[in-house]
């Protein structure tokens, strides 16, 4: 770069990236975020390159990207799933529709079916506890649960959920008695599973929004149970 220009910037008190990092060494170390210089990390630059090119070619709409990012960053996801579960607890006929045809039931609740056509709800009962994983990648019903938590994407969860589901449940502090069958569902790009947790005891007189407050994200993945009434979320 033009040395004069650089000096001007430096004189203005601006942190200029050392030329070594400009050469494109991937900046994978996450420990240095706060004292980053002006040039973003390697992945951030690659994303910028992709985005600006795709937008320029008319392949993606930047406004639509922003809407999606905003929606997911604010975690509306899990609350949508919680409302679905609450409706199923409150309305047995809806529950039947949800279990037999999940996509249609979601549309009935007003959820845009992007990705929804691939969802299937599995019900916890006094005899069966369901647990969801994606062993190979991390397929997840994010259209209504938001984005998966970090542990869901981790190799230990992806492998151990299949070979030692009870051990995994125990680590999450979830007690499932030995006489209850644990079913593990391996999500794929075609089918992503959502657990319908058991309605907690003592929740009989709650309305749907009170019920929804008892439904945690983990209970819909199956690593947890719904909260008891009175417990704080």
């Amino acid at each position, binding site marked *: *770069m033009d040395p004069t220009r*650089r000096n001007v*910037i430096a004189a*203005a008190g*601006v942190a*200029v990236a050392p030329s070594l990092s*400009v050469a494109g060494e991937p900046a*994978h170390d*996450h420990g240095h*975020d706060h004292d980053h210089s*002006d*040039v973003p990390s390697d*992945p*951030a*630059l*690659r*994303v*910028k*390159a*992709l*985005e600006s*090119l*795709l937008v320029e*070619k008319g*392949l*993606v*709409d930047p406004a639509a*990207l922003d809407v999606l*990012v905003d929606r*997911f*960053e604010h975690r509306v996801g899990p609350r949508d799933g919680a409302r679905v579960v609450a409706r199923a607890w409150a309305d047995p006929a809806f529950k039947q529709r949800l279990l037999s045809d999940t996509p249609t039931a979601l549309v009935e609740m007003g959820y845009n079916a992007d990705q929804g056509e*691939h969802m299937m709800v599995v019900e916890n009962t006094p005899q069966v506890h369901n647990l969801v994983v*994606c*062993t*190979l*990648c*991390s397929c997840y019903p994010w259209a209504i649960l*938001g*984005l998966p*938590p*970090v*542990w869901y*994407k*981790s*190799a*230990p*969860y992806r*492998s*151990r959920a299949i*070979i*030692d589901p009870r*051990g*995994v449940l125990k*680590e*999450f502090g979830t007690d499932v008695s030995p006489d209850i069958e644990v079913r593990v569902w*391996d*999500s*794929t*790009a*075609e089918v992503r599973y959502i657990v319908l947790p058991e309605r907690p005891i003592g929740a009989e007189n709650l309305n749907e929004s009170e019920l929804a407050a008892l439904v945690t994200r983990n209970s819909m993945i199956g690593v947890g149970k719904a909260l008891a009434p009175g417990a704080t979320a």
Partner: protein
Amino acid sequence: MTCGTITLNTPDLAALKLPTDDNGPIFAEPWEAQAFAMAVKLHEAGHFAWTEWASALAEELKGAADRGEPDDGTHYYHHWLAALERLVMEKSLAGQAELAERKAAWVDAYLHTPHGQPVELSSGPT
């Protein structure tokens, strides 16, 4: 093709601790959110099927595991981005040279923009 097979490549699974969920931000950095959104929007626009996406991502994850990289979920979006770049190239939505050139242009733009001003790509050659 689905993500159905499981590879047991470690005999010492119990020693691996599950990262606990701290309910922290789902995206550690803004680029992760942008990369996420681009894959979803390209799929919605019909540029690739979600099954193609899942298998591209699975291959990236497997590649990382084969290279012995730690797979605790924290580098997930690095793999996501690599899968996205690969599919974008495979589907001829953008070429490798084009992407590299554009990335260099961004670096240049950052270095030539005084602090405090929005960084923009100049339209002509610099």
